[in-house]
């Protein structure tokens, strides 16, 4: 099987669905949903069967700009999973989403994620900045459409406009950064950049200018401060499945690229290594604080999850800065990937619950969560565990991620960043637990009748909850997957 098969399959399926919708208008939404979900599931199955031998099948023409290391494979799997979940969530949300879209049509909501997924999967394997740029833009442009898709909702439209302008701005910054990095290192591929930076004679300031632009551009994608301001607004305005996709998929995609870029900028005895690390630490600390502290005030859970997403990006940036710390069994890129893997189930679970409440006529505010544990014990418990995990309580996935970050920070003696991380986490105890409190509160929300969940919904909820617990209690398999690159890298370094 060719390395492109799965991505191509997804992209073609996406386009095919659009065509079907265009030429066979009477086809039901359910069919399209089934096709896209089934297709993704199939792709996931294919991926897992093919993943083990994929690296060998890389054709020579794409070797300069593509690599299929363990990290790439992990992220590809990750993107498939999140896409599948998002599609399912879209299907779940269809009844209320349809109210805000043109003629209740949702075909693009089912087809575009497939294309986005393909784009993200390419990004995961990208080896040079051209590929990164093209794949990133495929994803970004699709997201412009997705965010604004429920355009009958003025909030969604507003979110779309904001995302559009700021996204385009960040694209400009990114390209400018690429230009300067290229200009100073003479290469667009990560390997070339790293090689150039290892030469001691290189002028630091221009490279740093390029790196600064590049980090700013990518920082926007991953919601790093001070480029985070769009996040709460867009998360709040966009339809729930899209927000989910943005907060997990898009962020992870941003971090793949950031990981690769930072690796290139830091590798070996890079002349600008210390500066980049310093920058990541400062940005990471700032991100944690600017994500956590304003979150204290949020009333909307959806917006809260936006801030939460910012603060988690901060931890991820801090993890990236601890490039030298490999004592915890993973490189910084491994830790980032691990963290994202833990971030996936808890965030998605949060959005799933939001979606279910929304479907039952509830709002998105904390007070709408009141009495949830009584209305649906399963959801109440699941959401409690998800929020506990987001807050980083031990025995949940979220803690494992944070633990690795903390250990790395301590290992590198980055005390300032550690303090910021701790402050952020402490504030997190407050704003995440507020929702937990509401969930278990005996007072009821405006809507108080028991929630009825479908079997699939229940199953998904349980699976996600179990994922949180399993990752928190038995992270060994995941870590083994992610620690391989370190060994490979170590081998290649010798």
């Amino acid at each position: 099987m060719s390395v492109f098969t799965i991505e191509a399959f997804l992209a073609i399926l996406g386009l095919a669905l659009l065509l079907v919708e265009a030429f066979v208008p009477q086809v039901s939404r359910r069919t399209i949903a089934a096709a896209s979900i089934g297709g993704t599931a199939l792709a996931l199955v294919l991926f897992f069967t093919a993943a083990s031998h994929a690296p060998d099948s890389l054709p020579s023409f794409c070797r300069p700009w593509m690599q299929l290391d363990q990290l790439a494979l992990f992220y590809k799997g990750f993107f498939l999973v999140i896409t599948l979940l998002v599609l399912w969530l879209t299907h779940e949300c269809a009844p209320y989403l349809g109210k805000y879209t043109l003629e209740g049509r949702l075909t693009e909501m089912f087809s575009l994620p497939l294309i986005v997924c393909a784009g993200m999967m390419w990004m995961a394997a990208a080896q040079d900045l051209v590929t990164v740029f093209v794949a990133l833009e495929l994803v970004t442009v699709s997201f412009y459409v997705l965010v604004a898709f429920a355009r009958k909702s003025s909030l969604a439209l507003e979110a779309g406009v904001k995302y559009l302008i700021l996204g385009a701005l960040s694209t400009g910054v990114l390209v400018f950064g690429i230009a300067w990095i290229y200009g100073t290192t003479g290469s667009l591929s990560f390997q070339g950049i790293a090689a150039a930076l290892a030469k001691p004679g290189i002028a630091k300031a221009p490279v740093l200018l390029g790196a600064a632009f590049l980090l700013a551009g990518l920082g926007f994608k991953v919601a790093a401060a001070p480029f985070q301001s769009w996040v709460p607004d867009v998360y709040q305005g966009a339809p729930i499945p899209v927000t989910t996709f943005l907060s997990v998929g898009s962020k992870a995609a941003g971090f793949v690229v950031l990981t690769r870029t930072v690796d290139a900028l830091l590798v070996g005895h890079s002349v600008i290594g210390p500066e980049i690390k310093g920058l990541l630490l400062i940005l990471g600390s700032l991100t944690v604080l600017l994500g956590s502290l304003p979150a204290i005030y949020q009333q909307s859970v959806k917006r809260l999850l936006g801030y939460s997403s910012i603060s988690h990006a901060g931890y991820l940036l801090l993890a990236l800065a601890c490039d030298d710390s490999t004592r915890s069994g993973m490189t910084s890129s491994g830790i980032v990937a691990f963290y994202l893997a833990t971030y996936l189930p808890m965030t998605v679970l949060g959005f799933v619950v939001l979606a279910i409440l929304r479907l039952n006529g509830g709002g998105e505010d904390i007070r709408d969560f009141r009495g949830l544990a009584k209305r649906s014990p399963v959801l109440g418990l699941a959401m409690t565990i998800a929020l506990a995990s987001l807050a980083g309580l031990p025995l949940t996935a979220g803690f494992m991620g944070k633990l690795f970050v903390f250990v790395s920070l301590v290992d590198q003696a980055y005390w300032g960043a550690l303090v910021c991380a701790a402050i952020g986490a402490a504030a997190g105890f407050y704003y995440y637990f507020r929702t937990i409190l509401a969930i278990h509160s005996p007072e009821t929300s405006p809507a108080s009748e028991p929630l009825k969940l479908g079997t699939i919904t229940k199953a998904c909820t349980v699976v996600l909850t179990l994922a949180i617990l399993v990752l928190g209690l038995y992270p060994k398999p995941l870590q083994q997957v992610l620690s391989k690159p370190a060994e490979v890298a170590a081998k290649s370094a010798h």
Partner: protein
Amino acid sequence: MPEPESTSASLPTMLLLLPLLSALVILLAHRVLKGASVIISLLSATVCFLISLMLLGTKDATPVLLPFLEVGKFKVAIDAIIDQQSRGMMFIVTSIGFFVHLFSVGYMKEDESRERFFGALSLFMFSMTGIVLAGNLVMMFIFWELVGLSSYLLIGHWFEKASAAEASKKAFLTNRIGDFGFMIGILMLFMANHGDVSFAGLKESFAMGPVHDAVKIHPTFFLIAALGIFMGAVGKSAQFPLHVWLPDAMEGPTPVSALIHAATMVAAGVYMLVRCAFVIEASPDASMTIAWIGGGTALMAALIATQQNDIKRVLAYSTLSQLGYMVMAVGLVALQAGGHHDTAAPGHPAMFHLYTHAFFKAMLFLGSGAVIYACHHEQDIWKMGGLARHMPVTFVTFLIGTASLMGVPFITSGFWSKEAILGVAFEVKGGSPLFWIGVATALLTSFYMTRMFVIAFLGKPRTDSAHHATEAPMVMILPLVLLAVLTLISPWGWAAKMLQAMKPDHAETHSTVMIASIAALLIGSGLGFILYRGKNSDPLASKGLFKVFANKFYFDELYAVLVKVLQDGVAWLVNGLERIFVDGIVARLPAFAARRIGSAARVLTGGHLQGYTFLLGAGLLLVIYLAIFVLPQMGH
């Protein structure tokens, strides 16, 4: 658990176990047992009395009864010292305990919760036995605290009465303050003697062991240690300045006053000081301090006693005064021994006075109990009078007690023991002021005892209740008589020897001492008789200095202010400061800061697109600035 070594361990074990069992059984099953509780308690007291009699004949031993704490080299066991001092004290405790039990059967007959009373009495017997037997300081401390508890329970027996509740609390707390010092003393001795706190070990160590030399190198250390130990005694034996609890303790039932607050527990301080004599001897400054505090207390209490109208309070202050006497004796003897302690010294004036005092003071208290009982719980002596006719037996025993207390020469036990103390004061270098204080106290003692006796027993009844008073029932009379017998026989050589009274055998008696004390007795009682004979009110009352006496030197008022200012005031202040500073700085300030910063940071997401683009631009500038102009300069 090591096997008790034959009889030397079995008797003390039983002495400890019996009252403990009795207390436990009453605690757990008094609902079922009802009146049987009384019998159980009485039975245990009786058996204890008998055992202590048996104990009188045993040889010296130090059996270990039970390991309590054992960590490495540090061992605290429940053990027992059986020597002259403990045998004698045990006899006092169990005999008076037995009498008081007996007396209480009558006295507490009508009380609704007499099971509780007898349970607490048993607990007290257990604790007191423990103190007497204690072979090491920690064990002494344990039972020290336990007697405090039983005293607390018994003083507060009628806890619905606010005054009783307050008095019990006061007693416990004051004792706690004493124990604070006691514990420090124990700790310092523990430290100095490398972990051995047994009396035997300490004594040896002070005599020739490592501590012997250390005393010379660190005199202050051992001064503080000795004073710490003494502080325990100050609390328990109600010495100045912790004496305030004892008079209030009279809120308890009278048998309790007789047993605990006259004869045994309050004397435990003296007992303990004599046990630790070697510690005090090691530090002359400590000895002097102790002697002076004892003397001061004796005089002060005697002065106060002259103006008290409550029969029990007079006796209470008298007890204080006599305890002061004993404490003074401890200090003086230590000063006299001054490091050349003769280990074979058979007697101790303080212990001897304790011994004699225990019997007659218990008798006086029980007598006053009988009087109170007869007068329908009337305690004011000015509302009695002429009781001699109605209560002949009580009258006689009371007379014997009073005479003993005043120290009527040659025939009363009090005379001999007081004489011994004054003799030491006379002999010791620098003891003469204390000697004269002792004489003055003796004079005052004669005066106030005469006063009380004259007012209560002689003359005519002043109230109906006094008029209709009748002799107490047999179970109450019997103990009085027995105590009177003991009082009379105890000073005599053969009895003192048999009962292990620790009578010091002085070769010479100083004539000065003899004359001074007889003169004091005569002047005191003469004045009392003249002043109060046939009076219906106190002629000295509210006259200048006497008002100060009547008001107990205003100690209660002073302490009330101290408690208010030093305790409640400081508590208020500390509480406020803690709220403001600790909580404020550690908790509320960061929370406030986080909220303010969070609130301020929301401006960054204020919803305006232009603001966002500006932020992006400014952020870009910041990142460039940091990357190019700041970080490279920082040097890594």
